[in-house]
């Protein structure tokens, strides 16, 4: 499997507040741009994988998008693993291609929680809403607290994740947040749900993004110059309810990474740059641990002193991530991974030839990993 498929094209809409745009229209725009980027014809596509929009759940939405694209796919549909969906769909596309189920897959996401409804992120957690147990941030705060108490992870460690992302966003013309951020700014930002502050929480954004997946052979035959090989992928999942996790401080990321590194025949030492799902600052910090870039509990220590900023040993979220580029759940990280391997990032890591990308959904409930590279 390793390297048999590639990401041949990438595309995305503007990010931020896009009033009056339907998710279907955003999916079509992102797809058109990905098709143009790959230099293929729309009619080459015979698979359409779509992430459901959080702002409005509609039955068989994948078919709605395919219809708007004027396509009748051989394989596809809508997938729901929350924020882990995009990389998982890319991996299913790669497996489908490998097994002759399709040849050229479009993987696309669009959502408009900013101008639509953000209800998905603020709902009560079943009967426990009677205790005031509401919203996605609180779930991450529950995990962050345990990590801070158990390992001494500090507010400043979480702040460094936010500051590094913002620093990278400053050179990205597509990033929503362009105001410089310091550790002091982060520490002074309003408390939301302790121990998380406003600047620990990602943006909520409208937007669409898409990628084209095909076999490496086909991309070579078509002379697609900027196709980026998929070296490995994996997934891992745990309980829906945070209270039901036997261990709060280790996530399904460890299982997902083991599968992905195994497929790629690589270790963390082979990775030059990482795009780690940062819906909340605690998430990439724990992903660094679970992926094996440092020991469990050492994530805080790892990120100190600029290690994850451009120029450090492992630059993380070089386009600004969910915290500063856009709140879109995950595809922008894949697109930035592709740019790093192509050498076209606005925060380019010199000589980057292996990038790991993480996606995760729910409250660290679902996880998927993608390793992109040149080798």
């Amino acid at each position, binding site marked *: 499997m390793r390297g048999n498929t590639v990401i041949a094209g990438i595309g995305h809409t503007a990010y931020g507040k896009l009033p009056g745009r339907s998710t279907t229209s955003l999916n079509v725009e992102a797809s058109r741009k990905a098709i143009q980027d790959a230099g293929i014809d729309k009619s080459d596509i015979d698979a359409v994988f779509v992430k459901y929009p959080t702002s409005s759940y509609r039955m068989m939405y994948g078919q709605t998008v395919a219809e708007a694209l004027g396509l009748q796919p051989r394989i596809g549909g809508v997938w729901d693993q929350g924020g882990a969906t995009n990389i998982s769909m890319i991996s299913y596309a790669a497996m489908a291609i490998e097994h002759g189920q399709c040849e050229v897959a479009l993987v696309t996401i669009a959502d408009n929680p900013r101008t639509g409804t953000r209800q998905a992120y*603020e709902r*009560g*957690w*079943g*009967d*426990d*809403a*009677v*205790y*005031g*147990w*509401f*919203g996605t941030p*609180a779930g991450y*705060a*529950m*995990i962050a*607290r*345990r990590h801070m*108490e*158990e390992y001494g992870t500090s507010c400043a460690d979480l702040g460094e994740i936010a500051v590094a992302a913002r620093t990278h966003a400053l050179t990205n013309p597509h990033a929503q947040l362009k105001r410089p951020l310091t550790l002091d700014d982060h520490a002074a930002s*309003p*408390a*939301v*749900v*302790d*121990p998380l502050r406003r600047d620990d929480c990602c943006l909520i954004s409208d937007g669409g993004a898409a990628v084209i997946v095909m076999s490496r052979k086909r991309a070579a035959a078509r002379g697609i110059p900027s196709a980026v090989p998929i070296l490995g992928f994996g997934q891992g999942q745990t309980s829906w309810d*945070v*209270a*039901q996790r036997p261990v*709060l401080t280790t996530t399904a990321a460890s299982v997902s990474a083991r599968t992905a590194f195994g497929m790629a025949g690589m270790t963390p030492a082979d990775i030059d740059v990482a795009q780690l799902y940062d819906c909340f600052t605690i998430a990439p910090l724990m992903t660094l641990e679970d992926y094996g870039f440092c020991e469990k509990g050492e994530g805080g220590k790892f990120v100190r002193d600029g290690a994850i900023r451009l120029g450090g040993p492992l630059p993380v979220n070089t386009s600004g991530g969910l915290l500063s580029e856009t709140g879109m759940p995950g595809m922008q990280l894949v697109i930035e991974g592709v740019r790093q391997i192509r050498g076209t990032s606005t925060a380019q890591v010199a000589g980057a030839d292996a990038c790991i990308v993480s996606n995760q959904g729910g409250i660290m409930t679902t996880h998927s990993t993608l390793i992109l590279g040149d080798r």
Partner: protein
Amino acid sequence: MTSVPHPEITPLTEPYWTALDQGRLTYQRCSSCSHTWLPAREQCPRCLAEEPAWTEASGGGKLISWVVYRRAVHESFNDKVPYTVAVVELDEGPRLISSLLPNGVPSIDAPLRFRPATVDGIGVTSFELAD
């Protein structure tokens, strides 16, 4: 003033909430493999056997983690902030979400004690630090 969201009382969950209305905390135990859990389920999540039994908890537990809401997500909690929500592990094993009372400085794995409480006339759980 909006009332807090009430739990959905179903034939499955009714015994749990009725016991809390009486100030008793209960959990489910598998009649087949003795596994214990919350919240209510039709089947044992370990051996998948049917018809678990309700058992009264001792009321002892420990603090797995907690958060403090500084602003309300739901308007019915506007006058309650700051308030604390915790993950609690009962001595008998089940884990649950509960309110944590402000009687001291919390720390992970601190011993806790169940205190019956009511919200809008509904019996609910709360826990306090057991010194």
